[in-house]
């Protein structure tokens, strides 16, 4: 089995170019590739478009900054495509001041748009958002008497995701609720970098237990 390069978080960050669309796994910091996020902050890349469930939790008083929050604080994003920004006041500030654009997408629609991108579909038809602001500018179709919105596939240049375990070929296993968007993003981006808590030999993961097949993964980073 072909083995994937094991690289440092800094080397992973260097694969992200200004202007890239970056998919970031995790849900309110649970299942986020924290070491790679920190390395991108250090590298100072900006002008990025974020695709993520949320913009992380940022609470200065409690000393909490998780998920993509460190990148938001570093003003790395010109656009953020997310379902929730309520736990990071800096996102709201940048949105209100016009420094960044925030595109709010219903969570299930976000998941499905990413899944579509990785599965060769141009988009999906969903009833979610019909009759709300979400339908503005979108095509509406009526099938068997029910209204649906056409939501287009959402691919990315680079996905940075987090796994509990990776074998050296790139087969991945996620932990508990840290799975969330990670396996979807692994299918939807040109370059996929996984940050794994544990890296094991090829064959050490039971093939029945693999969540993401190795072919989706390009690079592996050891989590700190």
């Amino acid at each position, binding site marked *: 089995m072909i083995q994937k390069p094991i690289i440092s978080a800094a080397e992973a960050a260097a694969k992200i170019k200004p202007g890239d669309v970056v998919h970031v796994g995790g849900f309110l910091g*649970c299942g986020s590739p924290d070491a790679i996020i920190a390395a991108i902050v250090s590298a100072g890349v900006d002008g990025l478009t974020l695709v993520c469930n949320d913009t992380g939790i940022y609470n200065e008083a409690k000393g909490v900054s998780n998920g993509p929050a460190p990148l938001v604080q570093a003003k790395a994003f010109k656009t953020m495509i997310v379902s929730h*920004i309520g736990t990071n006041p800096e996102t709201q500030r940048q949105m209100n001041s016009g420094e960044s654009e925030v595109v*709010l997408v219903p969570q299930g629609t976000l*998941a499905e748009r990413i899944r579509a991108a990785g599965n060769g579909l141009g988009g999906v038809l969903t*009833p979610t958002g019909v009759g709300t*602001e979400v339908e503005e500018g979108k095509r509406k179709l009526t099938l068997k008497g029910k209204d649906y919105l056409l939501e287009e596939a959402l691919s990315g240049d680079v996905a940075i995701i987090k796994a509990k375990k990776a074998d050296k070929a790139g087969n991945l296993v996620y932990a508990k609720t840290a799975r969330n968007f990670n396996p979807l993003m692994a299918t939807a981006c040109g370059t996929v970098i996984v940050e794994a808590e544990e890296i094991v030999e090829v064959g050490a993961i039971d093939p029945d237990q693999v969540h993401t097949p190795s072919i989706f993964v390009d690079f592996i980073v050891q989590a700190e």
Partner: protein
Amino acid sequence: MIEYVENKEIIARRIARFFASGDVVNLGIGLPTMVGNFVPEGVTVILQSENGMMGLGPAPEKGKEDPMLVNAGGMPVSILPGGCFFDSAMSFGIIRGGHVDYTVLGVLEVDQDGNLANYKIPGKMVPGMGGAMDLVAGSKKVIAATTHLEKSGSSKLKHRCSLPLTAAHEVDIVVTDVGYFTVKDGKFRLEEYFAPYTPEWIVEHTGADVVVAPGCKEFK
């Protein structure tokens, strides 16, 4: 003279009585989460959390939290035997696919046409919809949980929502701290009232069209 006093517990207590064993239920953040504490003995519901699990158990003891095991609000939880984890596409497949029996959500405004607004106050508060739009559009029954009156004294139940909608015409049941309503034919229908409030008081203190159901009774 009846004086209105906010009472979130009665809301949670009444909502919990809708469930039957085997129902799949999604509870939103805040007041809806309280519903889990009042499920009657002998009734076993399966709690689903949209970040990717079902079989949601109680919060773990202090010191036993697992950072990889959280609910949709990012708070530590546990998983009951028989529970399982899945990714976000499966999670919303469960939700949108009509496999959730009840979703319970908080309210900024709810109107007599079953419209719900709970994710945005333009120019003031824009947390985002998270999973709420999918939950409301996809669940079999949508329960809106809210105190009856604002701190200012104005009704949370409206003729028509003025805030951006989370979903149109999807709310089936509204439970407040004065009674429980169904949404029917463009009106709120009072099904039960909670003492000390009376149907007359409720009709007078609701900023929407309310009809009292023929079998309306006091909830005990």
